[in-house]
């Protein structure tokens, strides 16, 4: 049962009805029941058992960690619950990610959303250890925090302190909130059905049969893939956030106009924000500020001087983070390479900062905050991200290298206008729909980048304008997305994590 299946809408209508008709105090329990029903349909008994295991282990470890903290136990004793529980849960996660390598006979075992809820659960437990969050004494409430159905299969990865009060408050029906929630959902469906789904056939074709195409078409396909993955993932998140908003739960933002990033680090601050901040708070800081790395920093400062010496520990921590980011995205040498290259490029950026600063002065491209300099930085970041996407999307590492070789040795620019583009499973009509969707997305992102809330502006405008905008979006979703499109066959890319 995906967000785009008819059965999901029946489920959603039933859940809303039960939630709002239930007494205020029982609403959170309705949400928990709905979440388990949803997960049963999505992943079956196996997935329900896996998440229940995580909930139980996190609950018991949370109580233990809380008790040790209250007793002022030593740091090492207080780490025991984390050690046992995180080893078990991350062990389970790695087993499923690498199942096809560990036990080839089993093939790839999939538990939808396991990467998301495991990270969310681990964050909650670490926060208890750090004393940043109170222990959740009610196991059913903890179960709801970890299994809340809108965010279960593709995030965002929320913190307990961010959503718990909303989840358990049992907010009643609110017209304004619901209107905003529905608008967010419609925009999410537009991104998924009118942009991502229209881009998919071209991307699938070129990435599968790259050897039939010249470099120009491969670069074009990688660019289209960059848009597809954004529209697919952010579209799904918008639907999630819209549903949650109707239920009165404000989830954290997961995307902030990633195509406007002016560096790779800035990109990761705008893309899958909740994963990046998780990795920053629970991996980067602990590694970078660990005693062994601190000592290493002191030694390296003596050997390599102040600047390089200071940078080495940060670089090691950065590298670990992006390696973990690669592993999080799935098994396979090409995905690991995606993570390693990310780490390598960002680390290289740190080391070469004085050089880029000098180049900036030489070329008079003044910084990365405005004008030509900003445009250059945005295009450079887009180019770097596209290079990395060769590895993220390719079917194997050898395919990724093959595509890069093709790009640099056999470009065939003329294929962009000799009709080759129309032989990539997209008709002229499909390209027109895709272009229309991308232009609307671009306009929306420019407006939001200038710190204007699109929905607020829309809701303040004249009724005729509101009606026109929503009609265009709804008609696009219905006609292009459902009637002409392939709405039911293409599931969300990140839902497999």
């Amino acid at each position, binding site marked *: 049962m995906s967000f785009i299946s008819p059965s999901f809408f029946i489920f959603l209508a039933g859940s809303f009805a039960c939630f709002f008709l239930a007494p205020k105090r029982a609403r959170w329990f309705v949400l928990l029941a709905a979440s388990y029903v949803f997960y049963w349909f999505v992943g079956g008994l196996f997935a329900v058992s896996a998440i229940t295991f995580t909930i139980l282990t996190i609950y018991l470890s949370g109580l233990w960690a809380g008790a040790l903290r209250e007793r002022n136990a030593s740091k090492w004793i207080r780490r025991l619950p984390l050690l046992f529980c995180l080893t078990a849960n991350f062990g389970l996660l790695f087993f499923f990610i690498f199942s096809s390598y560990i036990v080839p006979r089993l093939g790839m075992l999939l538990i939808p959303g396991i990467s998301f809820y495991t990270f969310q659960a681990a964050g909650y437990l670490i926060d208890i250890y*750090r*004393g940043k969050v109170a222990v959740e004494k009610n196991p059913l409430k903890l179960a709801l925090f970890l299994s809340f159905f809108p965010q279960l299969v593709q995030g965002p990865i929320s913190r307990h302190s961010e959503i718990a009060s909303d989840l358990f408050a049992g907010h009643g029906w609110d017209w304004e909130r619901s209107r905003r929630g529905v608008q967010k959902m419609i925009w999410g469906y537009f991104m998924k059905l009118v942009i991502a789904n229209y881009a998919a056939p071209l991307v699938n074709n070129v990435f599968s049969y790259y050897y039939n195409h010249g470099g120009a078409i491969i670069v074009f396909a990688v660019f289209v893939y960059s848009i597809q993955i954004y529209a697919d993932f952010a579209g799904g998140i918008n639907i999630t956030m819209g549903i949650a908003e109707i239920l009165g739960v404000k989830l954290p933002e997961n995307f902030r106009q990633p195509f406007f990033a002016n560096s790779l680090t800035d990109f990761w*601050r705008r893309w899958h924000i909740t994963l990046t901040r998780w990795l920053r708070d629970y991996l980067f*800081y602990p590694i970078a*500020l660990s005693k062994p790395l*601190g000592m290493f920093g002191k030694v390296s400062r003596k050997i390599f001087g102040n600047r390089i010496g*200071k940078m080495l520990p940060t670089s090691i921590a*950065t590298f670990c983070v992006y390696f973990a980011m690669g592993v999080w995205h799935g098994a396979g040498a090409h995905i690991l390479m995606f993570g390693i290259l990310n780490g390598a490029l960002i680390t290289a950026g740190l080391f070469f900062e004085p050089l880029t600063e000098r180049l900036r002065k030489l070329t008079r491209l003044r*910084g990365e905050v405005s004008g030509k300099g900003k445009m250059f930085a945005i295009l450079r970041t887009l180019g770097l991200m596209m290079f990395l996407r060769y590895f993220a999307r390719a079917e194997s590492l050898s395919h990724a290298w093959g595509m890069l070789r093709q790009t640099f040795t056999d470009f065939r620019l003329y294929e962009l206008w000799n009709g080759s583009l129309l032989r990539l499973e997209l008709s002229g009509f499909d390209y027109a729909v895709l272009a229309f969707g991308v232009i609307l997305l671009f306009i929306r992102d420019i407006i939001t980048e200038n710190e204007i809330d699109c929905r607020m502006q829309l809701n303040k405008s004249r009724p005729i304008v509101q009606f026109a905008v929503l009609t265009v979006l709804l008609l696009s979703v219905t006609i292009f997305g459902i009637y002409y499109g392939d709405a039911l066959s293409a599931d969300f890319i990140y839902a497999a994590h």
Partner: protein
Amino acid sequence: MEKLLGILKNLHSDVAWANETALIDDGLLDSFDIIALVGDLNDTFGVCVELEHLEPDNFNSVDAIAALLRSLGAEI
């Protein structure tokens, strides 16, 4: 305070450190800066800034950083 401002200036010379009150929230200090800053603060003021101190509120302004240092026993 002069020492602290000197460390911050060394980190980014183009930021008006004394006037900013949302260094973390506005993205003027990112995670790389924080690690470099913590190393410098520990070395210069002889304190031990640890993981639990890495809260945005402790790093959003020069005054907040100074208050954190004072709470850790530094003379500033």
